[in-house]
């Protein structure tokens, strides 16, 4: 597509535009929408710059809007980051191809507990102190579910029914800070400078 008029006139534009502005990540799994973005990338890059966004095409082949300096933005929560990073780890495991890039919710929780430990998982996910064990377990499950729903809306995965999660290549965004073997602090400062990451949680004003 050669001109902005052509791109905006395309029937896919409204949905793609709204999803990008809501923070969604569009990857190969989105088929036609991904193809549309690939073909109209150069035109849309200039278009979104005027709104203060960088339409970023990640090395792993997915698209998202990155707020430029001075543009209002928000960040993911602690829970979303932890769940996203763990799902990215599962995505990088070759066994995922035997299950067509799907994991169960149960597998996710077990992986989190094995990696982090139940007490540490509670400490990271829950802001409040709960006394009884059943309440803690329930609150942890609810936080994980909340994070999953959010990541689904943002295009990192697709929830299928009660227990199945389809993982998408956009999860590789969670690996940015460990992409190179450079020290994490150096990697972080570069990513903060580019607007990819924020040092702390920033809530929507």
């Amino acid at each position, binding site marked *: 597509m050669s001109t902005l008029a052509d791109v905006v006139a395309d029937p896919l534009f409204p949905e793609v535009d709204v999803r990008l502005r809501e923070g969604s990540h569009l990857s190969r799994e989105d*088929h036609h929408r991904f193809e549309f973005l690939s073909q109209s990338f150069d035109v849309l890059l200039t278009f979104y710059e005027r709104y203060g966004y960088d339409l970023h095409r990640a090395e792993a082949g997915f698209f998202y809007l990155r*707020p430029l300096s001075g543009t209002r933005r928000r960040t*993911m929560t602690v829970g979303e*980051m932890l769940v996203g990073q763990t799902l990215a*780890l599962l995505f990088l495991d070759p066994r995922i191809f035997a299950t067509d890039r799907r994991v169960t919710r149960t597998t996710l929780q077990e992986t989190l507990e094995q990696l982090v430990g139940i007490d540490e998982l509670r400490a990271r996910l829950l802001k409040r102190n709960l006394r009884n064990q059943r309440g803690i377990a329930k609150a942890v499950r609810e936080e994980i579910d909340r994070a999953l729903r959010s990541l689904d809306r943002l295009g990192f995965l697709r929830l299928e029914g009660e227990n199945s999660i389809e993982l998408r290549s956009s999860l590789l965004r969670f690996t940015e800070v*460990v992409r190179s073997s450079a020290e*994490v602090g150096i990697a972080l400062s570069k*990513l903060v400078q580019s607007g990819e990451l924020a040092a702390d949680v920033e809530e929507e004003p």
Partner: protein
Amino acid sequence: MLDPELHIAALKASRARLDVDTADLCCLVLLRTIEQEASDIDEDEVVERLALIHERFGESEAHRLRAANGLQRFLDQRLLTRVDAAGLSRKGIYALSPLGRAIVEFFVSDDRLTGESLVVLTGALRARLIVAREAAKAATTPEDWAVGVVTPLRVVASDLLDGIGRRARGLDSDQARQRSEVAQMLQDDWFSALDRAETMLTASTRTLAELSRLLLDEQAALEGVLDEIEARARVAAAVEAEAAARAVSARVTALAEWGRKRHETWSQYLQLMLGTLRTIIRLDPDRAMSLRLRDGIRAGTLPGFLTLPIPARTAVLRDQRVAPDRPEATRPRASEREPLRVPPVLEKPLEYHVDLAVSAGANTLSAVLGAVLPGVAPADHYRAVGRIARHLACNHRIGRERDAAWTQVDFGLSITEWHLQGGRG
């Protein structure tokens, strides 16, 4: 046409039974192999080889004895027939019966659907349908239709379609197995797995493309014959034949659709999987990134939070509408309000008329209102009801139903009914 009662009675009378376990199946396969090699089955050689089979299954009975008994059991169950006429005087020569051969064919036949097997099967199906079409052209009686058209469509065509369907399911299992193999390849040798996986999966996609094309080509030819049979059956009012032709046509359509969808799904899977694999291998060739990610999650040392845009609220422009003029929501001051005027009918105070209505027998609020309000100007009804209700409440015990519904009374009012239960004294 099968007569179930007749056949069931015959089977029961003959005590026919089939009892074939896994070891027996293996024996039958072996017998078939011997038969194909040597055209008949010599008893001694067979017993020797069958003993080896039973030895592999670790059976407790002496293997030769079990093998010898097995041979007799096959004879009793008519899986094997003796083809010489020597009787019991010497060892026999045997051959598998049609039943024995059918069992072997069923278990060892190639379950995969290939272009070659599809051409053979659909070719056989088309031949059967052409025969049925010719029978439909020549049919003049219901028996002609039943024997020449309905039975081939219901039985033969159905069997062939079942065969294609079974092989198609075999292809589905193959693909599920391939996915597991790819995952294992990646686990064993990440880096070199990509090329091998690509070769394997691309071959599958080509097979599916070929099958899909063949099915579409065959579908047109098969449906052409079936449409002709259906049309002739309709003209001849052969209802069963028409239904049978339609049923086969529906199965052929479903099969072609299966082929198309499988090809589409597998192509998408291939593109997605290879694309993802190439990306992951490029980003993490030696799995070091995965290890850093895992260690970082474990230790809680991964810094930073991904940034996201704040979605702007989109202004929805509405059509301009002129707001209607509305009167000011005011009421006159108390001094300006006109006093409640009692029309000439009610010369005495309202409360007097309420008491009069009650003493005349009105024992509900609606009855009292019905007696008193006709004498009040309509504009004052609402206020008058309030005064009447207050007077009744002060001077009588009031009974009300819990959750009583609103009752419409005359004068455009709705009330919840009160029941007067005597004075307050």
